[in-house]
């Protein structure tokens, strides 16, 4: 099966191609790119079974550490009120509140974070709120992302579409474009309204759940904003709500390493995902999502086993990026060039035996 290359769907990609309705999705399906079979590195079943095993202990430890750190930063921010130290203290609080929520949302959404299912479900709801993603809608959008990773007009989660919008990308480091759009969708869903794009990937049987969750969020935001009015203070919003904006930079910083600048419309995760070596602090904050090729190829493997999975398949993959800086040395010039040249992308070189 040759999954290494598929022809571009259009001679010169356009931003409209990314629309799930009226975009390039139908052309992708006609080209056999939708719901297709993807390349898998051979990993023996026995080894894979061992790697897929679930465990509560590591996720409980990390979750307690994470919420402990948020609480500590929140207290620090409280005691720094009235001084200039409040700015870095709240930045730290917001970064911890929102940044790691992305990877917790992700891992809990896959159901791989904990062995005990209800723990994953609780963390999923909390992290979704913190990172400002409607839980059920984004569960289904992420399902599509895994079915049709970086397939133009099919994948709703392409973070750096081409031609690249540098200003928009930078604005989203503080959720300036994505945040208000998401809040508007929350209000629409709370009123029982769904966009055609949402209807294209969220089954109708799930709509009541979407509406219920949106109404709970509206109630929470109403209480927070009401507290601000009563107290004549921005503080409640600075603690709950606004961190999803001013703390968004960290997950964007990590998230761009996943796919930015890599080719669309290929059926091989070794070509359209990056695995990046990161330091232990980053790997805690990002819950090992830096092993992104491995995660996409075997999404059943929990975060704590991804380094071992990497060892099992690395000889069948393109070279790993040795650091976050090394990844950005590729991402930044590629994205800048993609502003004018949307056909340009990084080409990953696979080992000779499988290339």
């Amino acid at each position: 099966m040759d999954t290494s290359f598929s022809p571009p769907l259009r001679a010169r990609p356009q931003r409209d191609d990314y629309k799930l309705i009226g975009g390039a999705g139908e052309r992708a399906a006609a080209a056999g790119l939708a719901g297709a079979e993807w390349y898998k590195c051979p990993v023996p079943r026995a080894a894979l079974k061992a790697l897929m095993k679930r465990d509560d202990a590591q996720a409980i430890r990390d979750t307690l550490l994470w919420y402990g750190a948020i609480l500590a930063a929140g207290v620090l921010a409280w005691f720094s009120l009235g001084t200039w130290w409040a700015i870095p203290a709240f930045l730290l609080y917001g970064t911890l509140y929102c940044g790691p929520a992305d990877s917790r949302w992700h891992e809990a959404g896959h159901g791989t974070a904990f062995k005990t299912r209800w723990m994953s479900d609780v963390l999923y709801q909390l992290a979704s709120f913190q990172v400002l993603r409607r839980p059920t809608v984004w569960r289904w959008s992420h399902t599509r992302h895994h079915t049709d990773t970086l397939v133009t007009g099919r994948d709703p989660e392409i973070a750096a579409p081409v031609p690249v919008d540098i200003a928009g990308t930078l604005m989203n480091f503080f959720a300036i474009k994505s945040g208000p759009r998401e809040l508007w969708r929350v209000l629409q869903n709370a009123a029982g309204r769904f966009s055609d794009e949402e209807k294209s990937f969220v089954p109708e049987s799930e709509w009541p759940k979407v509406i219920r969750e949106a109404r709970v969020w509206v109630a929470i935001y109403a209480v927070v904003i009401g507290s601000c009015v009563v107290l004549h203070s921005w503080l409640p919003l600075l603690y709950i709500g606004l961190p999803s904006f001013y703390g968004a930079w960290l997950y964007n910083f990590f998230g761009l390493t996943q796919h930015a600048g890599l080719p669309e419309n290929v059926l091989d995760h070794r070509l359209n995902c990056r695995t990046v070596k990161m330091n232990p602090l980053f790997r805690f904050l990002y819950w090992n999502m830096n092993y992104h090729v491995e995660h996409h190829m075997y999404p059943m493997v929990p975060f704590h086993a991804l380094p071992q999975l990497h060892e099992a398949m690395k000889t069948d993959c393109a070279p790993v990026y040795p650091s976050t800086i090394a990844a950005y040395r590729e991402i930044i010039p590629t994205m800048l060039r993609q502003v004018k040249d949307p056909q340009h992308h990084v080409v990953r070189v696979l080992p000779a035996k499988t290339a």
Partner: protein
Amino acid sequence: MSQWIEVCPLDDIEEEDVMRFDHAGRTFAVYRMDDSVYATDGLCTHEKVHLADGLVMDHVIECPKHNGRFDIRNGKALGAPACVNLATYPAKVEGGVIYLSV
């Protein structure tokens, strides 16, 4: 009328594991759990992925592609993205061999 079809020796499937079994143009997933055997349709009802590549945990099979989960005893879908139940089939062990009724 249903008939019993020989699948494989019991020992071919590890405890708490699953194996793919193809027969007459159909694909099944055959499970061994607590020394009982179970059989379901072989493809996930969500996106037709082979469940035999998934993980069996306490009578639950988790799909390898999107982590949809089903109870292998009755095929019940246990949460998104698995929303449609899985068909199940009678299975038994006789003389150390697994049989499936279709």
